[in-house]
């Protein structure tokens, strides 16, 4: 085995302290550079899975490995550098007074020297096409701009895996397209949790369907979306008139 998989999830099960069991043994393997969408209805365990990837949630059965490094207490700092999670609400993600300080938050936490931090901030903001807002407070940006800045806040840590939680939610069509243009050329492994099936098809060649805390389907996105019985069984629906086979 030459390079270890970017992400390896083995038999992951987890129950919250109140007894609610969210995951019942999830297996997932992402090769380096792979792009995978996680599809599933509300309550399928998608967010619980995401919070296991960087060790926010732990203590259940099974294990998670990122680029060969197991998610354990002593590795947490490095794991959280490798796994960049972009949460759904950019107002949760952007908590510092200015955009620049927010993008610098991760690199500074990892103790990078200040010139390197400045370079990372400039690079990350340039990648998401927001280079001119570094000194602005996040509150003054549009929702789509905040979402892109939120992506920059994890890109500045040069992550191995980019995890996006519902990246297209609340975006207008132009904002949705602009975000896709930002994500498409990124040289990272991508895991995207979404209800937006056309977005999954556009950005991720492979998808997994999570329902009831287990992976119930795993395959090329076009094949999964072309299986009406599978979609119906797991409360997934294509937009009216959308034909996955008609998309280039």
């Amino acid at each position, binding site marked *: 085995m030459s390079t270890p998989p970017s992400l390896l999830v083995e038999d992951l099960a987890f129950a919250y302290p109140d007894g609610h069991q969210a995951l019942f043994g999830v297996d997932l393997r992402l090769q380096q550079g792979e792009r995978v969408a996680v599809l599933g209805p509300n309550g399928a365990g998608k967010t619980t899975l995401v919070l296991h990837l960087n060790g*926010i949630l732990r203590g259940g059965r099974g294990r998670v490995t990122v680029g060969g490094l197991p998610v354990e207490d002593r590795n947490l700092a490095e794991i*959280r550098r490798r796994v960049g999670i972009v949460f759904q609400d950019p107002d949760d993600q*952007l*908590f*510092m*007074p*200015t955009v620049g300080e927010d993008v610098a938050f991760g690199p*500074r936490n990892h103790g990078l020297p200040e010139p390197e931090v400045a370079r990372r901030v400039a690079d990350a903001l340039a990648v998401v096409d927001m280079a001119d807002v570094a000194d602005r407070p996040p509150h003054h940006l549009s929702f789509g701009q905040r979402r892109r800045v939120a992506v920059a806040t994890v890109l500045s840590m040069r992550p191995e895996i980019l995890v996006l939680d519902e990246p297209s939610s609340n975006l207008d069509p132009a904002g949705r397209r602009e975000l896709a243009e930002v994500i498409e050329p990124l040289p990272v492994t991508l895991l995207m949790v979404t209800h937006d099936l056309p977005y999954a098809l556009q950005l991720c060649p492979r998808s997994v369907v999570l329902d009831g805390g287990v992976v119930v389907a795993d395959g090329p996105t076009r094949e999964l979306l072309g299986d009406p019985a599978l979609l119906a069984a797991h409360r997934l629906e294509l937009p009216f008139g959308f034909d996955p086979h008609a998309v280039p």
Partner: protein
Amino acid sequence: MGAGHAHGGLAAAYVAGNSTVHRLEPHTKLVAVLAFALVVVLTPVDAGWAPLAYAGFLALLLGVAAVARVRPGRLLRGLAVEIPFVLFALLLPFVSRGPRTDVLGVSLSESGLAAGGSILAKATLSVLAATLLAATTEPRALLRGLERLRLPSVLVQILTFMIRYADVIGGELRRMKVARESRGFRGRHVGALKVLGPAAGSLFIRSYERGERVHLAMLSRGYTGRLPTGPVAVVGGRAWATALSLPLAAAAVLATGSLLG
């Protein structure tokens, strides 16, 4: 709640500029304002020269305001926070005991007049100094200054989040208000409290949940208990001398008064 646009709120106190006062490092200004307030408070109330000293202090502040190009109107608006103290000071001459004197036919307490007058003068001078600080220093720069002065990190973080989320939570409050009023609610009678109470509760729960989500986002990016700050500028003796010239001049006024008076 107040203004419906993004530029309201906490940042409104700041007057953008590039004067010497604006450019001073925030922590030197904080020290200067604190020291100035201390000198003002140390000025003895009952000395005959006290009013002259107060006038001197005021002249110093107006001088700084002129250098910083902060308009008098802005300074006056800053004094609004002082109103409760003013009311208290105005009350003192009426309720204090001791020898009384007649002012325009009204019997007032002499000690009350002196105490009220000094409260008014000292509070006004200190609030003016603080207003100047707020007008020439951005809120987040003030926080950096507090951090450099070794204010506990947790307090600085709480203040930082307050600045960041005041507008976000204000927005939620406004949306709730619009939603209520869109369904015919009017908040002008006692019965309205039955609606507004739970609304305040739900705003609290929402903010609490947001706090939890923000904390997750922070942990995900390697938060270890401190908000990392950027490069820290080294402050030379010159900058300190500039900043401290205000309290030193005030101290000189105080010393002159004590020696000559």
